[in-house]
């Protein structure tokens, strides 16, 4: 096991992980620059651009901590660079842990067990990397076609434009309705957290609208997470 960890943390593995990370960071900066440039041409103000960036940044703080907790729990099993590459960059924390244990299973061992050898680690790396590439391949191949379909629908008429907006909003609400209810059936504390966060969001958004408080709008999701966690702490 110790020897495997030396391999898992060796130079080449680090180099590959760092390169993938560099691509992700480069892409985010490139797209922010492209969007900022286009924002002017479609009539968005500089304040709106700054506000969007700030809000996105604040909204990522809470989830980042939750992601880190899962990442940390995988480090002793997969090593630093592979964990960084899988969880921090492409994958989703809960799915990666499932994939890692399935890979170890296939080799006939378990994550962290004493007979977890070089070959078992290689099997896990294959499973996670092949599995994660599925999303990327589909996104790389299909996004352009999806965009064409959307354009066809929205270019038709005012009425189909309105339908498209109903579909978009309903899809977003449905996604979060489903995610929230999946959490709510886990127990009382979870229900309480969902409700507290919802109420905090409603209060801070209506306050922000009433008094034109931009900063409050930017922080509203952050506050909802904090309030939810605060109440949840006492309910656990």
């Amino acid at each position: 096991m110790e020897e495997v960890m030396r391999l898992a943390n060796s130079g080449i593995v680090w180099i590959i992980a760092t390169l993938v990370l560099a691509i992700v960071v480069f892409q985010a900066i490139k797209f922010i620059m492209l969007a900022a440039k286009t924002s002017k041409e479609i009539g968005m103000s500089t304040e709106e651009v700054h506000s969007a960036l700030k809000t996105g940044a604040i909204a990522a703080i809470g989830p980042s901590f939750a992601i880190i907790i899962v990442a940390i729990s995988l480090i002793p099993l997969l090593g630093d660079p592979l964990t960084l590459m899988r969880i921090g960059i492409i994958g989703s924390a809960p799915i990666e842990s499932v994939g890692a244990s399935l890979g170890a299973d296939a080799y006939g061992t378990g994550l962290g067990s004493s007979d977890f050898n070089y070959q078992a680690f290689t099997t896990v790396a294959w499973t996670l990397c092949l599995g994660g590439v599925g999303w990327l391949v589909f996104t790389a191949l299909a996004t352009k076609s999806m965009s064409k379909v959307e354009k066809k629908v929205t270019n038709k008429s005012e009425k189909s434009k309105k339908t498209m907006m109903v579909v978009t909003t309903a899809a977003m609400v449905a996604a979060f309705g489903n995610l929230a209810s999946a959490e709510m059936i886990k127990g009382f504390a979870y229900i309480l957290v969902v409700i507290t966060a919802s109420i905090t969001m409603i209060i801070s958004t209506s306050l922000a609208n009433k008094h034109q408080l931009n900063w409050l709008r930017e922080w509203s999701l952050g506050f909802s997470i904090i309030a939810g966690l605060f109440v949840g702490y006492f309910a656990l």
Partner: protein
Amino acid sequence: MSVNQETVENKELSTNTQNFAMDKFHGKAHFWGRLTLWAAIILTLSLPVYLSFVLGYHPGWTIILAGFVAYAGIVAVVWVLEPIMYFPVLGVSGTYISFLTGNIGNMCLPSAAAAQNAIGAEPGTKKGEITATLGIGAASLVNKVFLIPIILGGSVLISAIPENIQQIFPLVLPAIFGGVLAQFAIKKPIYGVIALLIGLIINMTALVVYLKMLLCIVLTIGICLLLEKRNDAKQSV
């Protein structure tokens, strides 16, 4: 009358420029999005290839295939469903960033929604898409700023966090989802109620996770469309 005519023309002209700007933006987004995605795909696969064939730890294709098939059995449907389900919300550029940076449901979508809420941009519009891109881009960078030092510092940092505080981390997810759901419920309360009801019923069943999500989205969209149609009919009468 003539004034009206002029405003109409001006408006049309500006929508044309806007459409042109968006087309240009999408063109660049497709180019850079695909380039970065393919580069990431090649690099990601180079790791197991290196372990197997350069270092010689190849476990054999049968074993790799067994692991991959078991994993793909869970995630293969999601490879296709997730990008399609989230595309209307994320838009072209949002899709490219979100699927490379990962953590879509718990980080990218909430960040996009919060950013749109902050500046009052509707999802599915030009302004909505640019706003989502800015929000997700910023979220992706912040996530890396948090993650890198902690991974480098290793588990030492985490063990410094008291046990009872660590306990509440699973509650971050319900807090995010509750907050974002309410954000939409303010604008369209009825949508929120429908989605939550359908979600609760579906989650009580023993369906596979991705089917739950798909079913909830399809049913909610269907009911909301019917609802809007009825409202329109009422208004025109």
